[in-house]
């Protein structure tokens, strides 16, 4: 029987490819200056020159959404990089060596993941204040546990496989086994958690900026921020809210489809993990 094509992965990759290319384009060129205000062009609906209309200050919304999506995506990128790097290190070490440290780290992980990440982010922000760098660091740290958990599980599974034992017998160093032998084998799992990480990071950044505790208005536009500002002009300029909201949703949808396509069932995993815990 022929395998049916992986529609999720195809759809997710094409959607993400399109959005990311628009965003990358936005780093170099936007139709208008995102911050240029103009009193005569206040709240124009979508038209030929202003594809998505203008906001209450006469700023071109398409340009602002492009810039905002760029900010959101770059924050997500750095946050996921921090989370994935440290999460892989911690998860790899604990999963490979096991023991008491493994137990302790997993308990801390359980405790942290029990709380919604937006709540934890709010707590940290209430202590540290807001700003672009802070959001990146906060989200990055908050993503470490979920990466650590996935990687730990995979390492613990691979640890007892024949190829690892063989490598050990041949006298390969532990660090080499971990990063040269095991790591490539957990690639797909890691990739799909990275996709989920992007999904969560975009959502978290947008939520925080929307709540006014994310990006500072002076720093740059951000999708959440545009959505927050659009609320006051919802009646006169609904297209502003619609553009920013759809941009967030499309970004999230793309990443969700990719992780789905890579066969990583987030929902399933948390559920079956619990089940095993209760069984034991």
């Amino acid at each position, binding site marked *: 029987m022929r395998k049916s094509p992986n529609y999720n992965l195809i759809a997710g990759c094409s959607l993400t490819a399109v959005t990311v290319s628009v965003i990358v384009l936005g780093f170099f060129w936007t139709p208008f200056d995102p911050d240029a205000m103009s009193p005569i062009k206040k709240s124009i609906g979508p038209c030929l020159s202003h594809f998505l209309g203008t906001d209450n200050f006469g700023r071109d919304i398409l340009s602002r959404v492009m810039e905002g999506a760029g900010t959101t995506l770059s924050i997500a990128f750095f946050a996921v990089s921090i989370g994935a790097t440290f999460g892989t290190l911690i998860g790899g070490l604990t999963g490979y060596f096991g023991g008491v440290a493994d137990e302790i780290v997993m308990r801390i992980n359980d*405790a942290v993941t*029990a*709380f*919604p990440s*937006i*709540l934890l982010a*709010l*707590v940290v*922000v*209430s*202590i540290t204040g807001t700003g672009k760098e802070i959001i990146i660091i906060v989200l990055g740290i908050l993503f470490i546990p979920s990466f650590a958990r996935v990687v730990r599980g995979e390492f613990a599974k691979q640890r007892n496989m024949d190829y690892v034992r063989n490598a050990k017998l041949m006298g390969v160093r532990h660090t080499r086994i971990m990063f040269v032998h095991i790591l490539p084998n957990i690639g797909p799992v890691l990739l799909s958690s990275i996709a989920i990480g992007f999904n969560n990071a975009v*959502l978290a950044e*947008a*939520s925080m900026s*929307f*709540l*006014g*505790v994310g990006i500072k208005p002076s720093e740059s536009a951000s999708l959440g921020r545009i*959505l927050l500002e*659009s*609320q006051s002009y*919802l*009646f006169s300029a*609904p297209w502003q*809210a*619609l553009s920013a*909201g759809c941009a*967030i*949703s*499309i970004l*999230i*949808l793309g990443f*969700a*489809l990719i992780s*789905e396509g890579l066969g990583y*069932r987030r*929902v*399933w995993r*948390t*559920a*079956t993990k*619990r*089940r095993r815990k*209760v*069984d034991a």
Partner: protein
Amino acid sequence: MKYILKKVAIFLITLLGISVLVFLAFQIIPGDPTTRMLGTQATPEKVALLREQLGLNEPAVLRYFKWLVGFVKGDYGTSYSYNIPVSELLSGKIAITAALSGISFIMVLVISLPLGVILARFAHSIPDRIISVLNQIIMSIPAFFIGIIFTYVFGLIFKLFTPGDFIPYAEDPSKFWSFLVFPALAIALPKSAMVIKLLRSSMVKEMSEDYVRTAYSRGNSRWQVLSRHVMRNAIIPVITFLAVTLVDIIAGSIIIEQVFAIPGMGRLLLASIIGRDLPVVQTIIMIISIAVISVNYIADISYKYIDPRIRFR
């Protein structure tokens, strides 16, 4: 019984641990709250006096125990910004947030459980595929954006409610509930989509098991097999996920309160974070933590009673 006692003991220890963490977190904040409270009028004498009044000169351990005892008694300290007891600020707000989360959770159950079963029954048919795609899209729309769409469509165009015009329960209970319907639905929609997806795939997976074939061979009808046999097995992972969902709903209501201008706990939390009113932040975080941990433990315990395979071990 012994199991529950053990769980309750661990629960209390966890809460104690959380209280230490929350207290410590708000100790490491740079800057002195007194200078912030006094603002431009801060003179060394006034600062010293206020520090004495707030008890900031005592050792941290002593302050922790004082805070903890006060918290258990319902004395949450004094708000920096408003200079009134935090409990007074919070009164009524917890109930609003709880009502919003409660309605939202009931909506998730009412929407997702029947739909999940029906989709599983007609799995792989064309309507199932169409709904699954829609489901995936709804899942990706953040609740606050759905809230804004609702405000525009139902509030501004159809005028089913007045955006921003929250009616307290004491004033008109029926209007209070009807105002909460749209915010609750905004939180519930993406969450329901996730539960539908999980329940559907969980049921489809169970449907290929041997016991299902046996049930059919004994002459049970399709719906009988689904409701009595498949559902009872498929619901187990869903229940854990529902606990996660309830926790997310509580957190999500913080954001949705902002969209619909509902004067609940979340709005107060945000205002306090921005105004750096730490006693209020500390109290609300503690209350939400207690709610989160309770939900997790209740799910853990209920699990044991729902799945006999675990109960009789």
